[in-house]
């Protein structure tokens, strides 16, 4: 696992023959690799649109389906990482690229993720005619869109925050751009990147379940996976199957967490730049410990490090001494920037003409108004949800956060629950609504925040657990009453954390509305009044014009709320309520 760090061997050379820990670890590694490879061969089977892929509700097939789902996640994660490294770095290093990439990604973040699916799936299918690769790619692309944006933004921000002296040292010691990227940029952003990857994965689970059942021109493609299994279970009202799926998902996320992220987070501890050694809160992972104990794998690790060194120090990517005046190229630079600007203007002009012709001409204003009202209904739901959730979870979170023993138990559970795809639980709510004849418009609402509420919980817990002890003691000492204590101490000090959690939760709720506002069970369907339901229905119809309208409206509303409500609150929390 020692990719970025050579172990210095002070005389005691690492022995190359295995011990018994090696057997266990090797089996684990080989097992995982073989499984993934086997599943991958299944993905590229021939397929024609309209052909039904048999999905079986036999629980014995579930492990296989789960693997397919996991593999999709992994592939999407790899692409997200590649995308992050390219575009995050580009934006951080070039001002011109930054001015385009960053606002772009900011907007892409607010596009409802399932919208990407409805729009891109046809393209992907025609890209790989006669193969299941098309729909697979579409599904993977959706997961990618749920992961990539926050990773890019996080990566870009950390690269920008690298201390200038580190960059100067890199230049002074003649590191090439390539060497600097691997020696400074990547390690420096590693802890943040991993955290963002974990958040991305949480979002990814939600959408992987949704993206496996794809509707294209009134046909449904079911890609083998847990998501399709659930879709089928819902269609055939098979309660047992739903139970099995929930159990499987539970296990899958647990394994993913233990085998992938725990080890990575423990490994990334050393990239934290705080110059003090903290004894508490160090992440541990049994997998890392296992790998450390094995002789052979450690030997393998040093070999990998050696290979990584060669990779970083490739001869033709080394720096060369500067002999010419860097400003010489200025006329060339001016030419490039002129070209760049005219290209941008053409692009913007083209898009405006295109949008005018396609959307504004063919959609009557009344429809736009109708969709706008739908959007407001969904916005109202989101708003009420956040308030209700906050009223419930802030006191609970604070209570937990102030008891560190409880917090240590609750924190990983909340993070786990945030990763759990809540859409699996929707059928259960459907049954409740139908059984008790509840109002659809109201009772569908909690579904939207089922998964997202945990962000509020674990952020508030984190905030409450770092309220300085001396401030709490001062409050006791002054004999502050309950309400005064909350108003003057507790609420202000958890505010920045709460805002971070709430922003994530709101984003999740908007995204979930597309799934949550239409709930079905067997042949029955409950449809709520809202923008999410509108998008879902148009997608089922395959009406691209109205899908675009719905998605554009949602994107616009999310942007407006972000700019008008959340960003100012976030700024306020950073200005006034950060404890330093």
């Amino acid at each position: 696992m020692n990719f970025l760090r050579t172990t210095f061997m002070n005389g005691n050379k690492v022995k190359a023959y295995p011990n018994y820990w090696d057997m266990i670890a090797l089996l684990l590694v080989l097992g995982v690799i073989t499984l993934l490879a086997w599943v991958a061969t299944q993905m590229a089977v021939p397929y024609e649109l309209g052909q039904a892929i048999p999905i079986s509700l036999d629980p014995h097939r579930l492990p296989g389906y789960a693997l397919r789902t996991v593999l999709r996640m992994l592939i999407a994660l790899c692409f997200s990482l590649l995308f992050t490294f390219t575009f995050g770095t580009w934006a951080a290093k070039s001002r011109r690229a930054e001015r385009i990439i960053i606002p772009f990604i900011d907007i892409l973040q607010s596009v409802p993720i399932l919208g990407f699916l409805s729009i891109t799936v046809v393209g992907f299918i025609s890209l790989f005619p006669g193969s299941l690769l098309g729909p697979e790619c579409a599904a993977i692309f959706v997961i990618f869109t749920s992961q990539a944006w926050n990773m890019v933004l996080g990566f870009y921000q950390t690269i920008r925050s690298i201390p200038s002296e580190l960059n100067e040292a890199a230049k002074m010691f003649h590191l090439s751009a390539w060497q600097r990227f691997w020696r400074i940029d990547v390690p420096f952003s590693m802890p943040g990147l991993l955290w963002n990857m974990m958040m991305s994965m949480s979002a990814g689970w939600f959408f992987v379940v949704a993206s496996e059942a794809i509707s294209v021109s009134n046909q449904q493609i079911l890609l083998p996976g847990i998501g399709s299994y659930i879709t089928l279970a819902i269609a055939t009202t098979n309660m047992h199957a739903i139970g099995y799926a929930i159990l499987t998902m539970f296990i899958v996320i647990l394994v993913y967490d233990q085998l992938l992220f725990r080890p990575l987070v423990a490994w990334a501890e050393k990239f934290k730049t705080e110059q003090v050694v903290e004894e508490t809160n160090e992440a541990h992972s049994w997998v890392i410990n296992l790998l450390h104990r094995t002789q052979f794998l450690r030997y393998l690790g040093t070999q990998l490090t050696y290979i990584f060194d060669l990779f970083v120090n490739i001869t033709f990517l080394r720096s060369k001494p500067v002999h010419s005046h860097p400003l010489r190229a200025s006329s060339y630079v001016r030419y490039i920037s002129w070209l760049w600007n005219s290209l941008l203007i053409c692009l913007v002009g083209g898009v405006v003409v295109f949008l005018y012709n396609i959307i504004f001409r063919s959609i009557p204003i009344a429809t736009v108004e109708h969709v706008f009202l739908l959007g407001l209904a969904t916005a109202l739901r989101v708003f009420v949800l956040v308030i209700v959730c906050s009223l419930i979870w802030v006191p609970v979170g604070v209570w937990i956060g102030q008891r560190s023993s409880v917090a240590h138990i609750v924190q990983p559970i909340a993070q786990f629950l945030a990763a759990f795809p809540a859409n699996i639980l929707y059928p259960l709510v459907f049954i409740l609504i139908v059984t008790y004849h509840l109002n659809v418009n109201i009772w569908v609402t909690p579904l939207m925040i089922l998964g997202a509420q945990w962000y509020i919980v674990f952020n508030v817990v984190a905030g409450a657990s770092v309220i300085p002890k001396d401030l709490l003691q001062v409050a006791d000492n002054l004999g502050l009453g309950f309400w005064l204590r909350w108003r003057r101490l507790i609420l202000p000090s958890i505010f920045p954390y709460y805002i971070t959690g709430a922003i994530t939760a709101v984003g999740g709720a908007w995204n979930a509305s597309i799934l949550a506002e239409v709930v079905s069970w067997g042949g029955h369907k409950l449809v709520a009044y809202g923008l999410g339901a509108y998008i879902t229905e148009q997608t089922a119809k395959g009406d691209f014009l109205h899908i675009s309208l719905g998605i554009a409206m949602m994107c616009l509303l999310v942007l407006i709320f972000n700019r008008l409500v959340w960003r100012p609150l976030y700024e306020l929390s950073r200005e006034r309520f950060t404890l330093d």
Partner: protein
Amino acid sequence: MQDLDQSTMPNSPLIEVVNVHKSFKKGDRQELLVLEDINFRMYEGEIVAILGKSGSGKSTLLRIIAGLVQPSAGTVFYRGQPVFGPVRGISMVFQTFALLPWLTVLQNVELGLEALGVERNERRERALKAIDTIGLDGFETAFPKELSGGMRQRVGFARALVVNPDILLMDEPFSALDVLTADNLKSDLLNLWQTKKTGLHGILFVTHNIEEAALLADRIIVFNSNPGSIRGELKVTLPHPRNDMDTRFRNQIDRVYTLMTTQPLAEGATEGHQVIDLGYRLPEANVAEITGLLETLNAPENNGKMDLPDVADTLMLDIDELFPLTELLEILHFAKVSKGDITITEAGKEFVEATILDRKKIFSQHLKKYVPLARYIYDQLTRHPRHRALEENFISLLEDYLTEKEASRILSTVIEWGRYAELFAYDYNAGVLSLENPN
């Protein structure tokens, strides 16, 4: 090396800085001049110190010499060759060490060699040798966070020296360390230099510490602020090791203070206190500190007059802390600085002997009289119907003269003085200045 024949030639400088100017773009048209017409040479076997207050552009000059920053005009020559980027042969030690926290000491030291494409085994051998030389034996596998500040800076030195540099540049290398550690490291560095254990032919460093400059350097170049320019130059001929208790050493320090505080009498400048304008870069000094300094001056044993080096010693201030205080005292006509001495004025005596409330009144009068920015803010507030004004107005006014960062720093300094003098009140959240205190 091919350069050897050149370097043995008499009078061929290692580094030559010719007419260097540096200005930073500010807004659309305006430019802020940071360095003005810098010329100097550094010769074989010299240790040169660049001494100046913070913000005098001395670090920028060091970076221009290093090739990290391009000058707006002028050229830097290294052994006769113009510098366009980081040059092989020039190495640097940083103020905050700039170590990679995820690499061990050994790996940090190896980094520069790795970048140059030195083969693995040779790399390790040279790095271990450098670690040996700098006294880091036994810490090869440690991570920087396990080390104390002094040890970290030693890693910085080892990393700089392992590439066999010709010239070593140091940017305030000891200012992040405590006094004892810094002294220890300085003497080790001098030892290395004198025993010629390294291939170094010259050391150029930047500092704001007068004693440090006098202790290490053969030549001290004193910098002016706003814009940075060379005020003068002093040769230190005392043999190493120098003793900071030695009277000859104290004399050197006195000479530096005198050079730094003697106003170059401009055409027809009136003898007396300096007069400042609205956009003057007010020093960052607070009222408690200047009061403390006045009290020390006014103490019976000092009788209203002190030698600046003595002030620095008594109050344990370095020049970055001391000079802003003396500058403010001069501006407010509370004290007078010349030729390395500071003398309290009548007004200063009156201020320091007054009661707390009277002090505020005197301070307020002097603030209105001698600090144009404070007077301007006060006038604006008096004229405004509701006696309020946004801080942005004043910041944008100051930005005509200064950078954005500097403008807001100066405004907040003036706000602090104004609040003390009860000249005006300030609401942080709203960013509003007003005459009355909020209820």
